[in-house]
């Protein structure tokens, strides 16, 4: 909705600008120009979650990634005894669930809102639509996503090597 130039607060940021400023903090989207980020913002789904509400469970089929706009998210997995083990906490400007953007494999962890949280969802169907509507922008997103996933894979390999060395000793 356009801001009324007479009565409206001209310093009030509209929703799209808010979303674009959040996207700029995400490694997958940070190199994309402003106009393309505005275009991308139209593909995002805004979802709000109450405190302790579950966003998705471990092993649930995944649909895409979430970007934290406000609030806090706890990422956890179940140990052998069935208790939740917290892996990390994510605040505004972070993202999670990106592997589900590529495949339909089940979620590897559980995500729970620790506070009243607003998330921006970017899902596989939206990525497929983006590939049709703007292949150039879609390939930019996919390239950045590949970089992020590659980086995580390298870190995981490093961690595995460290654990193997520790066990051997």
């Amino acid at each position: 909705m356009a801001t009324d130039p007479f009565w409206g607060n001209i310093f009030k940021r509209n929703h799209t600008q808010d979303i674009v400023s959040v996207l700029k903090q995400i490694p997958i989207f940070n190199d994309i120009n402003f106009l393309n980020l505005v275009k991308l913002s139209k593909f995002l789904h805004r979802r709000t979650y109450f405190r302790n509400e579950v966003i998705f469970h471990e092993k649930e089929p995944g649909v895409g990634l979430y970007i934290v706009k406000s609030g806090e998210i706890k990422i956890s997995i179940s140990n052998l005894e069935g208790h939740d083990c917290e892996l990390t906490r994510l605040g505004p400007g972070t993202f999670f669930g990106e592997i589900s953007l590529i495949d339909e494999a089940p979620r590897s962890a559980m995500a729970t809102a620790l506070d009243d949280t607003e998330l921006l969802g970017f899902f596989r169907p939206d990525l497929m639509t983006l590939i049709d509507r703007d292949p150039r922008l879609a390939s930019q997103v996919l390239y950045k996503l590949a970089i992020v996933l590659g980086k995580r894979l390298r870190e995981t390999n490093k961690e595995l090597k460290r654990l193997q060395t520790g066990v051997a000793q």
Partner: protein
Amino acid sequence: MTGSTHGFTPMQKLILTAVGVSITGYIFFKITNLLLPFFISFILAYLLGPLIDRMEFLFKKRILAVSVLYVVFFSISAFLIWLTVPIVTKEIHTLSKLFPTYISQGKQLYQTTTKSLNERFPLMAQIHVDEKIEAKASEYTRELIKEAPAIAIQVLSIFSTLSLVPFILFFFLIQGPDMFKRAVTFIPNRYFETSIHLLYKISTQLGNYLRGILIEAGVVGGLSAGFLLLIGVDYALIIASVAGLCNLIPYLGPISGAIPAVIVFYMKMKTINSVFLIIGTFALIQFIDNMLVQPMIYSQSIDLHPLLILLAALIGGSFGGIWGLVVAVPLAGILKVIVTQFYAEIMFRHQRKLETSSH
């Protein structure tokens, strides 16, 4: 955009949902005729959606892409009308002139056939089969003549309603994705991901199926026109158009398409070989359709066993007649996607409950 519903018990939610669905269903049932142009526009927007998506990339703005599509479509339509109307008008004019001749020839053929059958099978003469057939035919003809004004008014009313389609389609094409996104915000968080996944699968399957049957109808119509012109059947274009459209109806369609060709060619050649030639031609077209066209087109869409397709068509036909036959197969495909998805979801939640309770 919140999706969470707090404050209602599960029973209250179920009752509210049931009441809401019933009221919505009742309202939709009452205004079915008014919804026809919206329904047709929705189907067309669905079919044209991927094309508009690709054009949006070329033209940068969706409204520009839709406008270009409209200009191209109306230009091509005007050209095709200018090209084919004289030929089709001539064929209709000739057909209407010769129609009384066809009727009297048909009557003569009927009388000769029943006479020869009565002589060969005396039992038929005893139970007056020919008189009963004549009585039924007269009754149907009388009913048709009586209903003709009402049918004409209904056809006119449908045409006037359909004139709204280009207008409604324009807005569906421009704002369809935004409307979908807005509708999806009402889904509760608990079912959100499952619903998105489900809607995407249904959308892909349905879109591929709709495009597939239209391509198939075009191929069958084209092949029919080619073969009929080669054989020398009169009104080949009209008959081929009917055959192509009838092919949209599973099982009954190909037979319905062949009947006019058989009648017209038999009237022209007056030999039994002409009937076999037309039947053979349509059998060949159906063979090409079933062996080549359908596997290519449907491999990406409806993933159903042929027996399930037959069952769906029978159920659809018995409940909804011709329209039931047309929508039965895509509905069966959608139902399969929904059932598979919900089954997986139920199994997952059950497994999670078991894991939680065992710890």
